[in-house]
């Protein structure tokens, strides 16, 4: 029976997904240039993209690795500052448009964030649970205070101190943010399906068993943490280009919590969950601005209601796979469990 099950070959699967992504980008981009989507809305779309990157990158450390870091905004801040400073300084030196330096800038921002991820990860990942949470929380605070005060220490304008880094060219737009989103999601997806990803999942499920089976626990923990920081840095770089100002006070404790809420709400370990929660929370935040004071109450209620009815988050560990759906259609195989969601 199983032998007759028709499969879609791997290259075709990727092709279908790539075509769908391209179609999405083309449609939305033409709506933007056609004026059907206003600049306010396209700005929100870019912000959604940035938070999708932040949520899926935190999901590596939280959902896949099973740790609880509370300093994700710190990596976002490092990535944003280094990407923006790198691009501004280099475009002055080379005399090229800042937007042309986006790719090296984002990679630079990501690498600096990853470097800090490595520095903090090696000692911090020896700790577990709430201890790790406190260490990463402290780290993010150090970053914030560092960005605030480094100028007076150096004696020249570097991060802009309390006034923030201003005059950043606004190089992010819907198109480049969402191309990055797709690339980041693709990378994380393939990584999690590889040997390295399996090792990370094994550590989450049972650290002792994983170590006994020959998984190098400390190596993979650090790897997952560094990759998480790398993508957070890229998210920060795009954030800087979307707003044009890096304000150190933004990247405090609450920002880290906000990103964590997206991951938990969507379902830890589910990329689809992180993506939809980042989208929904950003939109809800915007939709509720007209309610001013009541916004926080409704926002909190929303979280409580979701956690009451879906304690594992909206999607649990379920991840949508277009391929599975298509293969089922191809084989006229409609089992009931399709509706139930969680597969694993």
């Amino acid at each position, binding site marked *: 029976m199983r032998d007759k099950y028709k499969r879609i070959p791997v290259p075709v699967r990727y092709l279908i997904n790539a075509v769908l992504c391209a179609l999405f980008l083309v449609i939305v981009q033409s709506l933007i240039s056609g004026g059907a989507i206003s600049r306010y809305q396209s700005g929100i779309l870019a912000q959604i993209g940035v938070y999708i990157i932040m949520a899926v990158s935190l999901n590596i450390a939280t959902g896949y690795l099973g740790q609880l870091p509370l300093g994700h905004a710190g990596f976002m801040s490092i990535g944003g500052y280094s990407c923006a400073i790198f691009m501004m300084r280099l475009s002055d030196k080379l005399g090229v448009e800042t937007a042309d330096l986006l790719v090296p800038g984002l990679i630079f921002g990501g690498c600096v964030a990853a470097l800090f991820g490595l520095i903090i990860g090696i000692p911090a990942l020896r700790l577990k649970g709430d201890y790790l949470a406190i260490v990463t929380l402290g780290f993010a605070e150090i970053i914030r205070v560092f960005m605030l005060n480094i100028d007076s220490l150096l004696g020249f304008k570097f991060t802009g*101190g*309390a006034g*923030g880094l201003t005059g950043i060219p606004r190089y992010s737009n819907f198109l480049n943010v969402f191309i990055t989103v797709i690339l980041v999601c693709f990378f994380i997806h393939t990584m999690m399906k590889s040997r390295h990803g399996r090792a990370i999942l094994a550590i989450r499920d049972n650290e002792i068993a994983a170590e006994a089976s020959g998984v190098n626990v400390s190596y993979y923990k650090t790897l997952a943490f560094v990759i998480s920081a790398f993508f957070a840095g890229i998210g920060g770089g795009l954030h800087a280009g*979307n707003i044009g100002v890096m*304000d150190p006070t*933004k990247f405090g404790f609450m920002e880290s919590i906000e990103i964590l809420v997206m991951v938990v709400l969507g379902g830890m370990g589910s990329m689809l969950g992180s993506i939809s929660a980042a989208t929904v929370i950003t939109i809800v935040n915007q*939709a509720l601005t007209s*309610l001013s004071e009541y*916004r926080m109450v409704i926002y909190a209620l929303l979280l409580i209601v979701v956690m009451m009815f879906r304690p594992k988050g909206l999607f649990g560990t379920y991840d949508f796979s277009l391929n599975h759906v298509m293969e089922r259609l191809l084989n006229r195989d409609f089992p009931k469990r399709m509706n139930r969601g969680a597969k694993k």
Partner: protein
Amino acid sequence: MKKLFALLLAVTMALAITACSSSGGSEDSIKIGLLAPLTGEVAQYGLSVSSGAELYIKEINEAGGINGKTIEVIKYDEQGDATEAVNNYYRLVDDGVVGIIGDVTSAPTVAVAQASVEDNMPMVTASATDPSVISYGSNFFQACLNEPYQGTTMASFAANELGVTSAATIYNTGDDYSIGCNDAFVEQCGELGVQVLAQEGYADGDVDFNAQLTSIIASGAQAIFCPNYYQDDGMIVTQARTLGFTGYILGVDGWTNTHEYTDPENLYDCYFCTSFAIIDDEKINEFAEAYRAENDKDPGNFEALGYDAAMVLINGIKAAEDAGLEAGSDEYKQAVIDGIANGVVEGVTGEISYDGTGAPTKSIMIVSLDSGSPEFYMNY
């Protein structure tokens, strides 16, 4: 049952959202935007500025509006966050406003200033004292005096009027307003030959300043320059006097409500520069009375600047309306900007005009707190 409950909650929420987001505007109104932090950590400044601005708009509408058209204010909360400020700026543009009052604190204002250049949107900030906010385009105006001007003024006042030869400073290292004033003060002191014996920083949220003040007192400075907001200033004055400091304590326009945060007997030899204080003056009394009638409390510096920012913007819009241009067109925006740049308004914080930049030319006064409450000392 659980599902039903969840559904019910979802429906209520959806209704609440749609009910609140609908807002109608008539043909005969001019829409202006108001961008301020109404919730969050800096909400107090945003609420003050918006209450001042709304008071002026109300008065204008009661007096018949501009050429018979009423003014409709669309107010968005940016929570003191640069991201939200930029989002809400674009939202105001979508709503079709012809000018914006805002933003309030410096970092979000800079973000909005950068974004607004592309649209040439007329903007007047009531309180962003950072000199860089007007550097991006000619469409941006300040109603307040910027940090360098205030710091420089106090240094000259200390040297020339009080005869101070040595000073020390205590400032908030987490606040660009505080840093900006401090830097200007120290620089001007250098020019005037006043020795700056100590520059002590503290972190945002600190309440104990004894360590900094002790070292300042040990340095033997004759005056302490304290360019911070009034809550901190009140504590600094109290603690400095308790430690036995008897010299001058000098401040900037963030000091407006300091007298409510310390005992009157501590306030001898305290001076600050500001463009507004409740002193005995006809225009100010009139404004203060109107404000009290609306809000049940005394107006401060932020309220007055909000009122004046609205006045500056409306003055520009008047010019564009008089020219009979179509609202929202590029010519209209330029006419508003030109109207502001060339106009002179009699604000409650003094006569405001612009000489080619977005920074106002207006008088600054020194206020003395000797009697325990603000009293006009001199124009400087």
